[in-house]
């Protein structure tokens, strides 16, 4: 499902210097399982998920998702690929403030064009019911609690029937218990839909609801050199 080969990512620091964040020799995840990637804060988990989602491009190397080399796509193609194949629950959810929970989920379908237009409303309603928000459809994000916002983000990420679901730090804005419940729910949903799940976290409590755990330190050579953290 995910294959990274000789991927490097560094951020510009000003003055022409760059901050190396990732240097991954090889990293591959087969489809259909629930994975967690763990590591302390600042070790590059979000950067890795962004690379896999095609939101960031690597400084060097190749990223393949479901057989497609993201680095070879043009930006607009990458946007479409992501919309159609990858669901992403962001660390800070990133719900659209001007739209209701229902509309947030529907908008995701709007841009990907995977689901026929006439099914959007019904599917969005159903997904929100699945995450326990059937009674909050018309509320805007500001009217929802953090946990509820996160569940809207989960529903939105699953809207286009992705083959890969990325979830960044589910416990960042939640207490551990709630985060655990959400992760479990997401795990169930992924198992039902044969969706590969990749959760990035530094919270060991969340690891129970996944099948496999990957240590950031084990794959990121930058950390071995001690440049970050």
């Amino acid at each position: 499902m995910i294959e990274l080969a000789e991927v490097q990512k560094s951020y510009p620091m000003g003055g022409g210097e760059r901050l190396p964040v990732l240097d991954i020799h090889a990293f591959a995840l087969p489809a259909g399982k629930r994975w967690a990637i763990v590591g302390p804060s600042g070790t590059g988990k979000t950067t890795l998920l962004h690379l896999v989602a095609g939101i960031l491009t690597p400084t060097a190397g190749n990223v393949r998702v479901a057989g497609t080399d993201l680095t070879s796509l043009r930006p607009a193609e990458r946007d479409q690929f992501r919309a159609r194949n990858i669901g992403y629950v962001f660390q800070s959810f990133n719900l659209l403030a001007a739209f209701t929970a229902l509309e947030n989920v529907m908008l995701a379908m709007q841009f990907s064009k995977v689901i026929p237009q006439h099914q959007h409303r019904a599917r969005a309603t159903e997904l929100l019911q699945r995450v326990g928000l059937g009674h909050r459809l018309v509320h805007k994000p500001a009217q929802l609690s953090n946990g509820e916002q996160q569940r809207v983000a989960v529903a939105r990420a699953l809207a286009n029937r992705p083959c890969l679901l990325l979830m960044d730090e589910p416990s960042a804005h939640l207490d551990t218990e709630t985060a655990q419940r959400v992760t479990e729910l997401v795990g169930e949903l992924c198992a039902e839909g044969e969706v590969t799940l990749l959760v990035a976290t530094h919270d060991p409590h969340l690891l129970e609801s996944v099948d496999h755990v990957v240590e950031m330190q084990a794959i990121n050579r930058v950390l071995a050199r001690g440049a970050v953290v």
Partner: protein
Amino acid sequence: MTLVQIALRYLRARWFPNLLTAACVSLGVGLLVAVIVVARGVKEGLLLGTSPYEMIVGAKGSPTQVVLSTVFFLDVPTGNIPFHVFRLLKQHPRVTLLVPVNLGDSYKGFRIVGTTPDYFTPVFQLGRREHRLRVAQGHLFAKDFEAVVGATAAREAILTVGDQFLGIHGLEEGIGEQPDPAHRRQYTVVGILAPSSTAADRAIFTTMGSVWAVHGLPTAPLEELLTRGEGPPITALFLRAQSLMDLMLLATQLNGGPDAQAVFPGRIVDRLFTMFATGETIVEAIAFMVLIVAAITVSLSLFGATIERRREMATLRALGASPGTLVKLLLWESALISLLGTVAGFGLGRGAAYIASRIIETSSGIYVPVWQLSALEPAFLGAMALLGVLAGLIPGLTAYRMEVADHLVPLA
């Protein structure tokens, strides 16, 4: 949801600044529309008022003054022309319409105009629109000191059929010499005209003889004076002739003599407008500048919005919206703001033009039509739409070039 619906949602989320921006646009549009509409209205009003007459014969002096004073009863006449000019034209075989007017007195600011029933026959025309003078109550004057009152004059001076009134000399009370008290006589209202949207609405009509009599001039019935071959002077003559050639010949003849001048009212209106045109151009230029400022305001406001909404736009991108979709979204937003402003501006401009036209009509008697759509306005709407879209381009471009990953995190 369509892109337009998304755009509308974002506009509603920032409704107050967007409303202010639209108000800026509407001011610019309103100013421009008002200037265009009023300028055109005044010109049409002048053309309408002079439309029945191909030529005006008046005393020597400013031709503009001749037209404004005799047709629109603005300004004072340049003087009088001798009776024999009237006789000459009356007997001229090629003259098809000849309307004499005598100006002198007034009542409560409304001109008392000595004329003949011929004054009421021609049709005032502008394009397909026709205005006729019609007696609504009573009848036309038949004898001296009978008066027919224009609709507005009747309403404002509170005159009805059967009323009597005394004219005063000149246009304003207390100014100018009083008419010879020995000759003062009361007028009797015998008729009221229907509203006609011409200068006749604001005038009072009577016989030629009444005006002469008030000024102590020896008079007799017009036919008698014509056969006798002499009579008192006349202020002006309106005429039509069988052909343009006849008019040219008459004009040459009259302008060559010492007694009168021939004026072509259409030409005077045109000349007036080339004079006004410079001023109009300046106001139009200012209005266009206001429009550009309005477009910049739209641009600036949306630019602010894109900065405020960086994270939302990055999210839209992450959800699969292409950079081009974001540009379209912003173009829609700016077009919608501009559209709202333009529509409101049209209303505002038309409203202002209407108020201006009322003021011009009551102060000058020139009928100013403002309800007709001009060919300029759709063109103008298109130009504004284009400006609106252009205004969305700069914010659109920033959205286009936005780095998605940088803006997916909450603002610091």
